[in-house]
């Protein structure tokens, strides 16, 4: 009888701690017109934003739940806390952040990462940003990195935000985009001026501490002509029995000949509904690079979208999804080729185990005007047992003859021959299988910042060794 390697779920205990929030900080549960006005008042929104929230709420009520992905019937919107008052206003020094919040981020290693490898850090705790800082030399280059609310109140940026906010992902896009438009809070605003290359990454970290809560942060990044930015986002939450909701929104504007790399390591707890929306608009010769690692959440709907609007613009999507017991992760990417000579490349890996469900879903659309465009999609899935599920659902819609479209997908298990070969070279069966899984993920992990790649490889390798059952 064949021996089975059992791979543990990713150990999330380092993320699984919490500090109790005060009930009076909770503004309300569910979603109603009065609550929206209260959030707007609490946050000091300009009038246009208050109206925008109300319009979004109307759209939310009119829009149906998606009928094509994992079931989200057990998500009770009436129980979700949509806004929690901040424990303190945003600080620019770690020392000034309230003790329990500071402890949370210290345990997650954020201040250390800031000291060692980042240009700037933003940290969101529940509904609001509690810390933002940017290195002085980067600030001198004219780079802006702050929370969205502060930027909206700054007359230098208020018009820019009004012009771009939820224009790429309008509230009519889907039900949870509408929800986001109504209750959004926190998130980051980044502006990189023309010609500025930010050599060291910026990072935002989102922490959802409260039980049965929602996090609805909005990230808006605008980078000018010939600029460069690497932005990293991380997210986690402690584990509860009640459902939590993340319905964030990321809008990225990539200027002419600019490059934006957007990396995400998502490690929400297993009670989280991660219904996040991300979209980039890329101008002439610009480039968007998505790096996406999805490890947490109970249910995920996550498909970063690239709209290649300028001639010669390009997108790359590199993703890995690891789905274990109780997880149904529906992830992938979308690309719309909207201009001539645009190129796109998707490369994904997924691993399913212990009853976990992985779905890779993609769309490549090549419009009639996108002559000379090229697209290549490659996805590979590894099944580690027969109680799990792995589905691949790609779609291509090509509307010009002058396009070159390639697609390949593979699904399978760890090859007995490869394990046998490695064992003849002196590795134990456990080590051999761990090495194969790490190798399977390698072309994705090599795209991650080194500290994240090491963490990801360690998570996978350490959980495999010593677990043959």
């Amino acid at each position, binding site marked *: 009888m064949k021996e089975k390697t059992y791979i543990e779920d990713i150990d999330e205990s380092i993320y699984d701690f919490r500090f109790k929030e005060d009930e009076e900080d909770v503004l309300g549960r569910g979603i109603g017109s009065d609550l929206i006005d209260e959030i707007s008042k609490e946050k000091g929104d300009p009038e246009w934003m208050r109206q925008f929230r109300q319009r979004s709420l109307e759209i939310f009520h009119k829009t149906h739940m998606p009928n*094509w992905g994992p079931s989200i019937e057990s998500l009770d919107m009436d129980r979700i806390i949509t806004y929690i008052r901040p424990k303190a206003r945003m600080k620019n020094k770690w020392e000034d952040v309230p003790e329990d919040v500071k402890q949370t981020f210290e345990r997650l290693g954020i201040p250390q990462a800031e000291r060692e490898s980042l240009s700037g850090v933003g940290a969101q705790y529940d509904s609001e940003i509690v810390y933002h800082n940017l290195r002085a030399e980067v600030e001198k280059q004219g780079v802006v990195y702050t929370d969205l609310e502060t930027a909206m109140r700054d007359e230098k940026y208020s018009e820019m935000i009004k012009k771009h906010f939820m224009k790429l992902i309008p509230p009519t896009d889907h039900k949870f985009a509408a929800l986001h438009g109504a209750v959004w809070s926190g998130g980051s605003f980044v502006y990189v001026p023309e010609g500025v290359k930010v050599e060291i990454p910026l990072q935002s970290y989102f922490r959802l501490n409260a039980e049965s809560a929602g996090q609805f942060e909005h990230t808006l990044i605008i980078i000018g002509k010939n600029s460069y930015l690497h932005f990293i986002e991380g997210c986690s939450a402690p584990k509860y029995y009640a459902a939590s909701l993340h319905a964030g929104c990321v809008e990225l504007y990539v200027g002419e000949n600019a490059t934006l790399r957007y990396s995400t390591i998502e490690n929400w707890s297993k009670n989280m509904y991660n219904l996040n929306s991300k979209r980039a608009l890329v101008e002439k010769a610009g480039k968007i690079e998505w790096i996406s690692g999805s490890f947490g959440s109970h249910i995920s709907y996550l498909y970063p979208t690239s709209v290649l609007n300028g001639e010669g613009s390009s997108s790359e999507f590199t993703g890995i999804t690891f789905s274990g017991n109780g997880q149904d992760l529906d992830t992938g990417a979308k690309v719309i080729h909207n201009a001539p000579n645009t190129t796109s490349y998707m490369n994904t890996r997924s691993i399913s185990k212990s009853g976990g469900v992985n779905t890779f879903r993609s769309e490549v659309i090549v419009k009639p005007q996108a002559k000379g465009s090229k697209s290549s999609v490659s996805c590979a899935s590894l099944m580690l047992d027969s109680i799990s599920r*792995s589905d691949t659902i790609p779609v291509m819609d090509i509307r*010009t003859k002058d396009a070159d479209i390639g697609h390949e997908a*593979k699904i399978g298990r760890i090859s007995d021959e490869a394990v046998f070969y490695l064992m003849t070279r002196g590795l134990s069966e456990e080590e051999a299988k761990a090495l194969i899984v790490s190798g399977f993920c390698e072309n994705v992990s090599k795209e991650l910042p080194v500290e994240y790649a090491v963490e990801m490889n360690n998570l996978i390798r350490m959980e495999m060794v010593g677990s043959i059952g």
Partner: protein
Amino acid sequence: MSENKTIRINNLPVPTWNHLKINDAEYETMASKEELFDQLKKIAVKPENQLPVVHDEVIEEATEGLDFEFTINTDSTIILRLLNKCEEKSDDSKKDIIVKINANIKEGLTLNLSIVNLTKGARIYVTSDALCNENSALRMTTISLGSSKAYFEGKAELKGDNSMFDSYTAYILNSGQFLDMNYVADHKGKNTEAEIVSSGVLNKGTEKVSRQTVNFISGCAGSKGAESEEVLLLDDDVISKSAPLILCTEEDVEGEHGASIGQPDIDVIFYLKSRGIAIEKIYEMLSFAKIEAALSRIDHEETSEMVRNYLGINN
């Protein structure tokens, strides 16, 4: 009084984003799907030897559609040809024809099923369901050249161990034709195999939708499934939609998909042009080659002649 209805056919086994309009096909009719199928003329086919059974369905005024029941007790070859009453003069553009096929392929046997669409403007809908028992095989070949709108569906339930589904579809679409395909292999038995291939050419103003699904169901250990698609796009105002799905709840399987969509390989074009062949002729050769590949699978001289005549190759 009957009213126009829209029924949904060629459904993807697992839906995706609605805005892509690929989860199913809309089919305008005057009845429900069940009523449509009830109206079909029932035909039972039990081949008694390995000689090909050829059924020609000629599009006429009162075409009522066909409901075939194939019982396969011997290795069999069945060729279904959809034709015009009078090839040159007949206008069948307002005709519909529906063909429903059910096949039960007994243990150890092979059914070679070919469907050849040589109508002119008629709308056709061909749907087939096959049950493959242990060590049996369904080898299906479809050629679609005619019809204003053509819908093909082929489903194989690979229930028996070592059963096989091998489907090859070839098409050339011209002047506003629409082709919608949905092929599904459900792997249930151990060591089952499926290969679903679609290969075709889109010319001016045409649209093709291709759905291919390999579905590995828990218990089908040792099974393999492959899908592939090659589409040559020869004009700008064409639409090529594809959804190649791999669904999997079994660990010990191998599934793969490959697609290539676009213009002909530039090296091939360069070589053929260097031999003095005009570009129009090269496109024609590459198009006909796809149909010839299907004809070699059908291996029936009369059918090959008919198809070549339709394409004008023999002239």
